[in-house]
């Protein structure tokens, strides 16, 4: 199995050590993992918050990117960010086929998301959030995100 061996290795490494602010919640099997991330600096938008990420892997991982979304639970909100929809879908080129590289991994994605939050100063949702959340039925990877503002 293509994805299995690679994910096995990644998991072994994750069990060994993870960068600060990233913790593994569950990794049962090689289809779906949950991880928690925290923003490490003093950014007031995300201060004292923990966010939960869901990773879904296809058979062709890591050739194809995993599907990564934020999930909403009682103590894990969806972070406010101009590229994160309120249903947890993330608009990040790294997670689309164009920006993805097979040498990326779960850890590197988590770190990218951490820095995406750290660098943000806008306490707002993407344009058209309500409409997108109400109407979207597609998988995140099939959505053609229009990168409104690449500076964020």
């Amino acid at each position: 199995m293509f994805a299995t061996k690679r994910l096995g290795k990644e998991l072994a490494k994750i069990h060994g050590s993870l960068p600060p602010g990233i913790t593994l919640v569950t990794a049962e099997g090689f289809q779906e993992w949950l991880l928690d991330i925290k923003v490490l600096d003093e950014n007031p938008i995300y201060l004292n918050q923990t966010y939960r990420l869901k990773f879904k892997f296809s058979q062709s991982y890591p050739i194809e990117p995993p599907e990564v979304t934020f999930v909403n639970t009682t103590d894990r909100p969806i972070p406010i960010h101009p590229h994160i929809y309120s249903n947890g879908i993330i608009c990040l080129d790294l997670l689309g086929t164009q920006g993805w590289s097979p040498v990326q991994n779960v850890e590197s994605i988590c770190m990218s998301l951490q820095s995406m939050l750290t660098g943000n100063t806008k306490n707002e949702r993407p344009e058209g959030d309500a409409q997108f959340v109400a109407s979207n039925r597609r998988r995140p990877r099939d959505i053609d995100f229009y990168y409104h503002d690449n500076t964020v």
Partner: protein
Amino acid sequence: MKRNAQLTGFASAIRISSLSDEFKHPSTIDTIPPQSKKRKAAEATVASDTLSAQRSSKRIASAAAVKEGPPTPLTTGSPMDSDDEFMSGMSSDEDMLQESDNDDGSADDFGFDEPEPDLGYSQKGAVEKQEKRKFDINYKVYHPEDIQAQQDDLIDEVNMILDIRKEDAAILLRHFRWNKERLIEDYMDRSKKVLEDAGLGPSMTGPPKLEVIPGFMCDICCEDEKGLQSFAMKCGHRYCINCYNQYLGQKIKEEGEAARIQCPADGCKRIMDAKSLDLLVGADLQTRYHELLTRTYVEDKDQMKWCPAPDCTNAIECGIKKKDLLRVVPTVACDCKHRFCFGCILADHQPAPCELVKMWLKKCADDSETANWISANTKECPRCNSTIEKNGGCNHMTCRKCKHEFCWMCMGLWSEHGTSWYNCNRFEEKSGSDARDAQAKSRVSLERYLHYYNRYANHEQSAKLDKDIYHKTEKKMIQLQSASGMSWIEVQYLNSASQALQTCRQTLKWTYAFAYYLGKVNLTAMFEDNQKDLEMAVEALSEMFEKPVQELADSKLKVEIMDKTSYCNKRRVILLADTADNLANEVWTWHPKDLFDYFKS
């Protein structure tokens, strides 16, 4: 009768309401739901539009070689060959005179309707040779092998001039969108930067090869077996052959990429070259990769477009600029006989310019006329605002939804009308007359649209029906051959007639979209005359064409059909020459006046 059979969505809806006006007694009210039935009907029309457009494309293409010529069939070739037929649509008046001079002669034939084996090449030659006429569109048809050869020539040239590997030359050319001059200039100035930008960074020598490196672990699959074959491009990012295979398969098969596949490493801009790729993937992916590469050549060039006909692999080169599209309708004919507009890739839409076509199709597809219909034919219940179509009876309306009773004339409460039943004689407030004015306006606008739309749709539909007949024609021609003892060449006049019908109806169809947007000037009368002449000729030919085989065999009818065929084609050329002339000289006015202002700015 077939013309009457098809009612458009709008027309049928209107008919229903006018029919019901005849029932004088009951005062009934229809509460129309927000999504009226009419909308459905309109959608249905539109759907069939696109369908027919697709299906007819091949057909229209085959009509491309319709010739205008005198009726006598002859088997020998004529100096006026069919190759320039597509041009004749745009030919100037002098050509018309020439052609009519030919009219009484017998030096033309119908034999050219069948493609000659070398048509493609002779056509290319003909286009090049042709002296430039005012509205001619110069273009060339390229076959897949021509396209490949052109690329190879360019690659060889750059390979020689810059003294770099052919693979690198190809990547550089693709990076520069096949602009050889700019590539060479830039390369001479700053070769390092050019190479870097194109993903060819600092290079080591030697051909690409697979290697087994002790202690190697692939960063993608984490495989570290002994003897694992791995590969790295010149950037040095090394991955195992399996991962490369998977990665390239994903890029080529799923994402349709070829010319710009980057190294799998994050942020590495190194581009996969053809030689390395051949080493890493199987034959099927290689074939697909080279197909896609060839495709980027055409797609990268502004002056080249693929022929949109299904399964056609040719490309057309034409120098027409986007800004010219208001003055020229650049119709081109592929060697596969598909005629299309180079500006917008839609099937031949002469005489209407691309922007007009776009607007018209949008208008027919969207709901703007539905709204017009509703405002022209309905009122709203004063209490609950339900849209109401009065479908008969007196002025005493009872809303089906909220049971509100009101007067249709003044929209006031019915209870106030006292005993003046069925007749509202209350003084008209100004608001009432304003509302009626607005209604009258939208009625006129709707009627105007429907006038043109019905005729547009009618020709589209008739072309379809003529096409059905054409299928039968082929059988008829065989029957004719055996029934009348005529030779194959002698029955080709039916084929010519059928093709003329298709081409002329295609033109007529678009004249109605054209006319819808045309402002009223003196020229418009001339255009309408031309349109009428062509339409009458086409309908007459269409009627003759439907006759049973026995009658078709009659030599008198045969001559009549041939006469009419050539007359139709001639009228079409006259109409197109006239409209193209006026378009080029920008003498048409538009309705509304500022129709194309946004395009010019």
